[in-house]
C-alpha cells in the first residue's frame, strides 16, 4: 500500500476494500479470502493426518473424520485453490495485456463477494453442528441419507460461490477478448493470460452442469423431489455424471493457470524466450478441449460398460500428449538459458519432476482394468495430491513469491523463502510418495483408521510426519509475510530485474489507473523488447488524455449478502428432509431474495457512468504509469 493509504483510518481502508472495483484491490481480497480458507483446509488436513498417525488412534470420531476429509477437499478446491489463482489472475492479467481494468469491474467485485459469502456459509456448518460428510464429490445416494443439515450447507454454499466463479470466468474472457492494448494480438499474449483465457472458458462450460446437479440435490433434500431417489424412479448415476462433467474440467481450471505461472517464471529466470510458444498455446487449447471428454474415467468402476470405459480410457491417455509437450517446452526453455535460482524458480524446478510423477500415475489410472485395482485406494489420493499440490499449490506458492512485489510493493525474504521451499518440498514428497504404496498394499481412502500389523503403520506414520513439515513450511511463509510487511521496504518496477511482460514496466504496486497511456505492443515479451532497445518504459499507443474510471460501490456486497440470508431461509423451509422446518424460514428466504434482486434492480436503473481523471491531473502525477517519458 502506498504511503497515503497508511495514514488513513482502519475504517476507511475497510470501506475502501468493501466497495472497491479495482482489479488490484480485488486481487488482494482474493488473496486474503483464499489464503484464509487455505489455512482452514490445511488445519483440517493436519487433523486427518493426526488421526492416521497410528493404528486405531481415537483422536476423533468416525463421524468427525468423515466431516474433516469432506471439508478438507471441498475447501481446498473451491475456496482455496481457485480463489488464490483468481488473486494472481486479477493482479496480473489486466497488466499483461495493457488494460486499465477488467471488462466488468462491478462483476469482478460481485464475483469475489459471492465466493466469499458462499465460503463462509459452507464453513458455518462447523459452528452449527453438522458439517457435510459425504466426501467432496457428495455422491447422491450417500448424500441423500446424510443426517442433519451438513449436505445442505454444501449445496447452498457451493451454489452461491459457484455463481461467483462463473461471473469471474466470463469477466476474464471478455477482458482478454476486448481489452487488449493495440498490437497485443492473441499470439503475442503472455502464457499466464492464455491459460487464464482457456481456464475461464472451461469455467463457462463446466460450472452450469454443476449448478444444475446441485439444484437437483438441493431440491431432493430440501423439497423432497426424487431426482436421485431410486424408489420414485430417480437415478443416482445422474449426479455422478454431472459432478464429473464439471469435476474433470475443474482440475484443468486449476492446473492450466498454474502452468501459465510456471511458464512466466521459467522463462523469466532462464532469461530466455519461452521455448515453443505457439505449441504451448496449442497444447493449452488441446488440454481444454480434451478435458471435456474424459470425465467418465472417474467412473470406470460404476459399470458403464466396456465400450464406454474403452473410449474414455483412450481419451484420457491422449491428454498426456499435450501435457508432455508442455513439460518438454519448459525443459527446453531452461536448456541453454542463463538460469538464475530464486525462490519462484526453485518451485518451478521442483514442480517439473513432481508433476510428472502425478501425470504418470494418472495415465496408470486411465487404464481401465488397472483402475479397478486402484479405485478408492490411497493410490488415488497420492495421485491427485501429486498433481494438485505438486502442480497447483507449488504454482500458488511460486506465484505468491514472484508477484508479491507487484501486488504489495515489497519483496518477500529470499532466505525464509528457501527454508519454506525445502521444508514444503521434502514434506510433500514424504507425505504423498508413500501413499502410492499404501494404496497398492490395500489401504482404502476415506476410512477413519486402520488396524496394526497389516504393514500400514510405518507408511502412515511417515505420511503424517511429512504433513507436519508442510504445515511448518506454511507457518514460516506466514512469518515471512509478516516480517516483510512490517519492514515495508519498497522495491522498484522490475524487482527481479529480468521481467519480460508488461506488468514489470509498471510501478510496484501499479498506480490505480495502471497505464497513464495505453501501451503499444510490438511483440511477445513486450517489456523485454523495450529493455533490449534501451527504453526505460513502454511505447505509448495514444497521446495523454482523460482516463475513464468506474465508481466504487457497496452493491456487490449487498447482493451477495442477500443470497447468504436467503440460503438460511431455504435450508430451514418447512418441507426440508431433516424435518426441522422453521416458521421464519419462508419470510427469511423472501427477504434475502428481495435484497438481492432489489439491489440488482437499483443497479440497473441508476445510471453509473463512472468518472474521469482529467489530463491536467495526470500530467502533474508523479507516477509514470509504465510510460518512459
Amino acid at each position, binding site marked *: 500500500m502506498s504511503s497515503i493509504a497508511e495514514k488513513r483510518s482502519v475504517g476507511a481502508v475497510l470501506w475502501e476494500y468493501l466497495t472497491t472495483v479495482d482489479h488490484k484491490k480485488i486481487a488482494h481480497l482474493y488473496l486474503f479470502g483464499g489464503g484464509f480458507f487455505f489455512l482452514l483446509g490445511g488445519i483440517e488436513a493436519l487433523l486427518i493426518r493426526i488421526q492416521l498417525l497410528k493404528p486405531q488412534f481415537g483422536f476423533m470420531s468416525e463421524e468427525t473424520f468423515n466431516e474433516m476429509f469432506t471439508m478438507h477437499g471441498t475447501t481446498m478446491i473451491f475456496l482455496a485453490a481457485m480463489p488464490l489463482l483468481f488473486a494472481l489472475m486479477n493482479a496480473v492479467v489486466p497488466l499483461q495485456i495493457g488494460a486499465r481494468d477488467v471488462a466488468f469491474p462491478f462483476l469482478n467485485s460481485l464475483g469475489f463477494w459471492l465466493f466469499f459469502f458462499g465460503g463462509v456459509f459452507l464453513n458455518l456448518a462447523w459452528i452449527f453442528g453438522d458439517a457435510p460428510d459425504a466426501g467432496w464429490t457428495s455422491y447422491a445416494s450417500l448424500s441423500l441419507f446424510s443426517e442433519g443439515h451438513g449436505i445442505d450447507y454444501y449445496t447452498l454454499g457451493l451454489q452461491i460461490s459457484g455463481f461467483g466463479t462463473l461471473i469471474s470466468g466470463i469477466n476474464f474472457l471478455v477482458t482478454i477478448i476486448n481489452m487488449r492494448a493495440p498490437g497485443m494480438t492473441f499470439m503475442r499474449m503472455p502464457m499466464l493470460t492464455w491459460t487464464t483465457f482457456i481456464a475461464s472458458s472451461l469455467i463457462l462450460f463446466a460450472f452450469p452442469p454443476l449448478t444444475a446437479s446441485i439444484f437437483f440435490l438441493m431440491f431432493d433434500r430440501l423439497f423432497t423431489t426424487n431426482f436421485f431417489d431410486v424408489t420414485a424412479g430417480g437415478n443416482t448415476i445422474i449426479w455422478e455424471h454431472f459432478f464429473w462433467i464439471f469435476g474433470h474440467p475443474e482440475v484443468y481450471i486449476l492446473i492450466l493457470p498454474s502452468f501459465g505461472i510456471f511458464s512466466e517464471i521459467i522463462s523469466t529466470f532462464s532469461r530466455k524466450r519461452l521455448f515453443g510458444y505457439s505449441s504451448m498455446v496449442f497444447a493449452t487449447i488441446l488440454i481444454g478441449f480434451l478435458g*471435456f*471428454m474424459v470425465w467418465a474415467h472417474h467412473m470406470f468402476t460404476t459399470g458403464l460398460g466396456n465400450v464406454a470405459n474403452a473410449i474414455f480410457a483412450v481419451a484420457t491417455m491422449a491428454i498426456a500428449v499435450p501435457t508432455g509437450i508442455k513439460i518438454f517446452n519448459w525443459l527446453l526453455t531452461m536448456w541453454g538459458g542463463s538460469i538464475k535460482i530464486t525462490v519462484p524458480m526453485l518451485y518451478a524446478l521442483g514442480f517439473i519432476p513432481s508433476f510428472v510423477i502425478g501425470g504418470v500415475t494418472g495415465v496408470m489410472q486411465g487404464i481401465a482394468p488397472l483402475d479397478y485395482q486402484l479405485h478408492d485406494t490411497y493410490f488415488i489420493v497420492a495421485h491427485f495430491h501429486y498433481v494438485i499440490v505438486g502442480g497447483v499449490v507449488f504454482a500458488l506458492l511460486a506465484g505468491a513469491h514472484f508477484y508479491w512485489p507487484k501486488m504489495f510493493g515489497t519483496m518477500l525474504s529470499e532466505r525464509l523463502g528457501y527454508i519454506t521451499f525445502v521444508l514444503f518440498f521434502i514434506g510433500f514428497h514424504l507425505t504423498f510418495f508413500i501413499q502410492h504404496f499404501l494404496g497398492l498394499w490395500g489401504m482404502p481412502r476415506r476410512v477413519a483408521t486402520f488396524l496394526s500389523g497389516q504393514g500400514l503403520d510405518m507408511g502412515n506414520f511417515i505420511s503424517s510426519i511429512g504433513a507436519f513439515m508442510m504445515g511448518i513450511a506454511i507457518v514460516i511463509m506466514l512469518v515471512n509475510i509478516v516480517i516483510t510487511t512490517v519492514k515495508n521496504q519498497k522495491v522498484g518496477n522490475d524487482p527481479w530485474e529480468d521481467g519480460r511482460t508488461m506488468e514489470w514496466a509498471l510501478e510496484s504496486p501499479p498506480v490505480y489507473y495502471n497505464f497513464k497511456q495505453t501501451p503499444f505492443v510490438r511483440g511477445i515479451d513486450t517489456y523485454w523488447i523495450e529493455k533490449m532497445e534501451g527504453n526505460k518504459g513502454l511505447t505509448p499507443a495514444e497521446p495523454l488524455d482523460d482516463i475513464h474510471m468506474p465508481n466504487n460501490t457497496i452493491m456487490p456486497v449487498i447482493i451477495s449478502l442477500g443470497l447468504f440470508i436467503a440460503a438460511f431461509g431455504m435450508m430451514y423451509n418447512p418441507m426440508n428432509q431433516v424435518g426441522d422446518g422453521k416458521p421464519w424460514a419462508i419470510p427469511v428466504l423472501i427477504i434475502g431474495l428481495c435484497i438481492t434482486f432489489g439491489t440488482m434492480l437499483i443497479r440497473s436503473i441508476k445510471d453509473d457512468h463512472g468518472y474521469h481523471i482529467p489530463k491536467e491531473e495526470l500530467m502533474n502525477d508523479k507516477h509514470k504509469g509504465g510510460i518512459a517519458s
Partner: protein
Amino acid sequence: MENNSVHRTSVEYRRKKSAKEMRNQFLTFILMIFFTVISFVSVAYNDLFPSNFVAPFILLLAGIQVIFQLYYFMHASHKGHEMPMFFMYSGVFAAFLTILAFLTIVWW
C-alpha cells in the same frame, strides 16, 4: 466518432439495407411458423407417419429453426460475431456430449 461526416445518402442507404434485412427476417419468421405447424401436424396425425420417421424429422426442423434464430434474428451472420459463435459452438459441443452420455451410459 466522425458523426458530422455521415451524409444523408448513407443514412438512406443504411435504411434500405436494414429494410431489406427486415424483409428477410419476416420471411424467416414465416418459415419458422410453417416448420412449427408441420411438426405439430406430423405428431398430431402420428397414425399417418411412422414414429421412427417423425422423431428425427421434427428434431431436424427444430435444428433449422435454431439456425434461423441465431443467424437471422440474433444477427450472428453479421461481422464481429466470430468470437460469440466460437463460444456458442463450444457450448453446443459440451451440450451435445452431455446429452449423448445421458442417452447412452446412464443406467436405466
